[in-house]
């Protein structure tokens, strides 16, 4: 593992923050193409941060404020740029996602930023998959929250307006289950147990149930725009909140 240049990493975090703040402001001012340019600049800053983290650690980012949030913001930036290009409800979702990126980057700047110490296990594929898929799940579910907020912001719900959000929840669930299975496999091959009575296991089980909530709304409740959107927002907000609290607690 190479010694990281934290000043350079901080510069990239501030650059991403400035780019997403600019993209959000310009999008609200109706400057469509400048907003796109700045959002892509944010994605580029995120990609550079990620590239440096991989170079320094000789492995993909895993967890913690620097690595975990760094990768989530990069993925969110990509999803937001894609939806901004599609326009309509997608463009409003992109604005919410840029706001989420700003909030995450602010949290990142407030917390201690350092790469997690190397471990002899960090070349084990199931471990890497566990962390990577968890980060992907958080990004997908947070963008699903944006999609639901955007649908609600448009007033009455037209047919199919919640579909992209629902698809993102399903994709997030797939990534989350993949992460959980990788974690169970890692745990089993190491200790012989595929679960442990610890904080991570209890939190993950609770998170899975929260993700299942929007998929089990009674039809009458699902027809109410506010309720359906609130249920769709919940998984992303909860998983991001729990993950940040977990990492603050264990750091």
């Amino acid at each position, binding site marked *: 593992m190479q010694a990281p240049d934290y000043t350079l990493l901080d510069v990239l975090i501030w650059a991403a923050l400035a780019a997403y703040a600019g993209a959000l402001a310009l999008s609200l001012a109706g400057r469509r193409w400048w907003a796109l340019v700045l959002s892509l600049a944010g994605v580029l800053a995120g990609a550079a941060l990620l590239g440096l983290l991989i170079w320094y650690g000789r492995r993909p980012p895993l967890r913690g404020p620097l690595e975990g949030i760094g990768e989530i913001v990069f993925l969110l930036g990509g999803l937001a740029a894609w939806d901004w290009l599609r326009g309509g409800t997608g463009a409003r979702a992109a604005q919410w996602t840029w706001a989420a990126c700003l909030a995450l980057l602010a949290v990142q700047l407030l917390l201690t930023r350092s790469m997690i110490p190397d471990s002899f296990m960090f070349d084990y594929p199931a471990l890497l998959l566990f962390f990577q898929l968890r980060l992907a799940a958080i990004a997908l579910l947070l963008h699903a929250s944006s999609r639901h907020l955007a649908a609600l912001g448009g007033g009455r719900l037209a047919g199919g307006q919640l579909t992209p959000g629902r698809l993102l929840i399903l994709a997030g669930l797939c990534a989350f289950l993949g992460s959980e299975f990788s974690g169970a496999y890692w745990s089993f091959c190491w200790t*012989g147990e595929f679960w442990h009575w610890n904080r991570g296991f209890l939190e993950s089980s609770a998170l899975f149930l929260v993700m299942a909530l929007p998929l089990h709304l009674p039809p009458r409740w699902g027809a109410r725009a506010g309720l359906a959107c609130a249920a769709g927002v919940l998984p992303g907000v909860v998983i991001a909140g729990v993950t940040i609290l977990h990492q603050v607690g264990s750091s």
Partner: protein
Amino acid sequence: MSLWSSLRLSLAALVGMALWLGLGAVMVGQKALLAAFRGLEGVSLWIWALGPGQQQPELLTWLLILFILAGLLLTNLAVCTWTRLLTGPAGRSLRRYLALTMHILALVVIGLQGASFFLAAHKTQVRLLPGQTAELAGGLALRLEQVRFTSDPALLKLKYAQARRHMSRTSYNRQRNVAQVAFVRDERVLASSPLRYFEPQEQDGWRVFLVGFFQKGQDGQAAIGAVLNLVRSPLWPPFALAYLGLIAAFGLLLIWEMATARRPARA
């Protein structure tokens, strides 16, 4: 029947159980309860509840309510699967079959997870020096034949948190630190093989896992031994299979919904 299969009950059970698990996660964070939770590892919940659990009323109550909520959720899941998906009036679409498969696999996964709480047959953190043996069951035993440890033995003297910081990929090569183990019965060697991290060996339903190494004695006459977990875990293969099936069903549902989704209405 309609009450037991209702989506309102599903929601109530999901919310209740999520909050209860969240409370458990908070409880684990309390120093006073952390040791109690650790006491649940590797032991059947029956044995724990009738023995050491009697001294832990908070944890015992939490577990009891958790199992009541889980029972409610599983009953709802099973009845809902039967009445709505298996015998219900809905059409025979691919989506319905996928939803049915997902619900059945979710039942299997949660059921096997629950069963594993009660079917523990583990000997964890067994510390053996070369030549020492650990008894298993039915005359079967595991003998540590030798240890090949190529890293700095000073790493083995570090406390847990320090060890985590210092055992890096360069200072601690997990492939080169090996324990040679043999399954024996009546002094007859049934199988002998090198044991590495993440590469368990199996004999007659018992699996042996290399968890770490330890050093006994002072510098001149120090001996290095292996820390092993000896586990009978018959539920892992069906659990893993059902879990992979569940992920595949979710993936197929996602692909199906993406293919059939209408373009979102533009604002």
